[in-house]
């Protein structure tokens, strides 16, 4: 029998494709031919190895295949999940810690008076405009309340306010400077001179940041005055310089004298000086002059509760504001006087000459 015929027969035998008689014949053939029995044995062993190898490869491939599905599961399990579970464990603690920190910070700040300090700091600056006729107004308001006491009417708030302050001439043709806070929200502005004569004025330019307002007398009865006797000093004035002011804390001009006490204003504000002159509501917008009669600043406000801490805006800032006025809003250039006619005069003479150029600013 040929070898390959035998192998074919053996395959059929091993696969169980043979009939009962053939199986018997095959087994008999092998029993009687030991060399073929040997071949069958080798063939069987080889096939088993072959089959096992294939099954094993199959299993191995499936195992490797599964590993690619497990990827997200494995890595998340070891890193992501750890972080998440760590976080979920600490979430509450973190929340509580944050809340405690928050509460203790604000309690401490409150207990140490931090918030009251802040409030005080924002409110202890007072602008020096004067409320006029306040006594009369208060009495009227009181009477009104008494009259209406049985009518259950809520008294209407009197919103029209009436302020007074100071202003002074920049040029002889009627440009006047005062504070922005004086004219802010004004319906009409009147300037009244020493002799009691009042002129209507209009706002040319305001600078809220520097608290400056430039007005112009727009009244037919106004005649150009003599040249203003003072000049404007653009350079910084030294601390300790002797200075004075004239203003209208009441309806009469009031002279005040003192010295320049610091080169910065309220809480380090560099656009102002701190000056030590007794000033009161109504002094706002008044000129601050040195001994030679140079305007070094414009009074703007003072600090509440501190003696002798008043503030004046530096002349340099005034000049800057003037330069920034758009030309179309001007009627003729503002040409500042550069000839000082006060420097040789005594203080009382200076004041006499000055008075004609300083106005009460009345705002309605």
């Amino acid at each position, binding site marked *: 029998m040929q070898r*390959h015929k035998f*192998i*074919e027969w053996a395959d059929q035998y091993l696969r169980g494709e043979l009939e009962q008689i053939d199986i018997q014949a095959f087994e008999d053939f092998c029993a009687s031919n030991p060399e073929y029995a040997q071949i069958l044995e080798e063939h069987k062993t*080889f096939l088993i190895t072959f089959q096992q*190898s294939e099954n094993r*490869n199959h299993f191995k491939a499936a195992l490797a295949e599964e590993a690619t599905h497990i990827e997200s599961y*494995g890595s998340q399990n070891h890193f992501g999940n750890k972080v998440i579970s760590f976080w979920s464990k600490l979430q509450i603690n973190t929340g509580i810690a944050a809340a405690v920190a928050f509460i203790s910070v604000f309690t401490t700040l409150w207990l140490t008076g931090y918030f009251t300090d802040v409030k005080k700091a924002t409110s202890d600056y007072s602008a020096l405009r004067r409320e006029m006729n306040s006594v009369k107004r208060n009495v009227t308001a009181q009477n009104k309340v008494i009259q209406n006491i049985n009518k259950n009417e809520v008294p209407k708030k009197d919103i029209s306010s009436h302020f007074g302050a100071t202003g002074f001439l920049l040029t002889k043709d009627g440009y006047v400077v005062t504070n922005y806070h004086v004219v802010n929200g004004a319906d009409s502005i009147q300037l009244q001179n020493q002799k009691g004569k009042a002129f209507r004025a209009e706002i040319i330019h305001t600078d809220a940041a520097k608290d400056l307002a430039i007005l112009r007398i727009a009244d037919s009865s106004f005649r150009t005055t003599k040249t203003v006797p003072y000049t404007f000093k653009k350079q910084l004035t030294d601390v300790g310089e002797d200075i004075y002011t004239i203003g209208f804390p009441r309806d009469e001009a009031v002279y005040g004298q003192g010295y320049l006490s610091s080169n910065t204003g309220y809480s380090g504000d560099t656009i102002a000086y701190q000056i030590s002159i007794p000033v009161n509501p109504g002094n706002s917008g008044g000129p601050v002059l040195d001994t030679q009669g140079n305007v070094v600043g414009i009074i703007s406000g003072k600090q509440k509760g501190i003696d002798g801490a008043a503030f004046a805006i530096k002349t340099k800032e005034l000049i800057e504001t003037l330069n920034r006025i758009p030309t179309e809003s001007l009627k003729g250039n503002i040409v500042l006087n550069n000839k000082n006619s006060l420097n040789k005069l005594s203080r009382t003479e200076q004041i006499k000459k000055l008075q004609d150029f300083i106005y009460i600013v009345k705002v309605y």
Partner: protein
Amino acid sequence: MSKIKHILSAEVSDSEIINGIEKGDNRIINKMYKLFYPSIAHMITSNNGTDDEAKDIFQEAVMVLYDKITQQKFELNSKLSTFLYAVSRRLWLKQLSRKGHSTNTSDISDFEDILHVEDDIQQHQEIENKFDQMNEAMSQLGEPCQTLLKDFYIKNLSMQEITDKFGYTNSDNAKTQKYKCLQRLKKIFFTIKIAE
């Protein structure tokens, strides 16, 4: 009650897994990953290993188990999880010492061996070698012999089906072809074996 049933059905016993491997049931693989992989991956990743290395080690450990189950009468004398963990640990230690990392592994190498898995690994490597030879022989054999032999001896296709699939004129031709292929495979296989 239904909840308990659900939990019970989700749990796979060790003997079920062993049966699954014996029968070549690939569905069991997924369950093995779920049950055993996390602890092994943790052991490896916390000892200088990456996720990919953990997977490789796990796969090799499962193959050790596979060989143990398929090649001999398998006696289960520990839990499967313990066995796989011990094998993985040993394999990982070997790999680390090959890489020269031995200094940093004190925490796992100090541990007393729970099981003596050395013999199993040794046996696995021998089997791996043997089957590598078969795989090598198969790849040298080339097509169409490879597919023909697989179709006949593994997939149990009939001679007639093979004749149709490979386009032989009659089944006798196919039989001759199959015989030649098998002879060549045997020759290559034994040549490689002797060379080893």
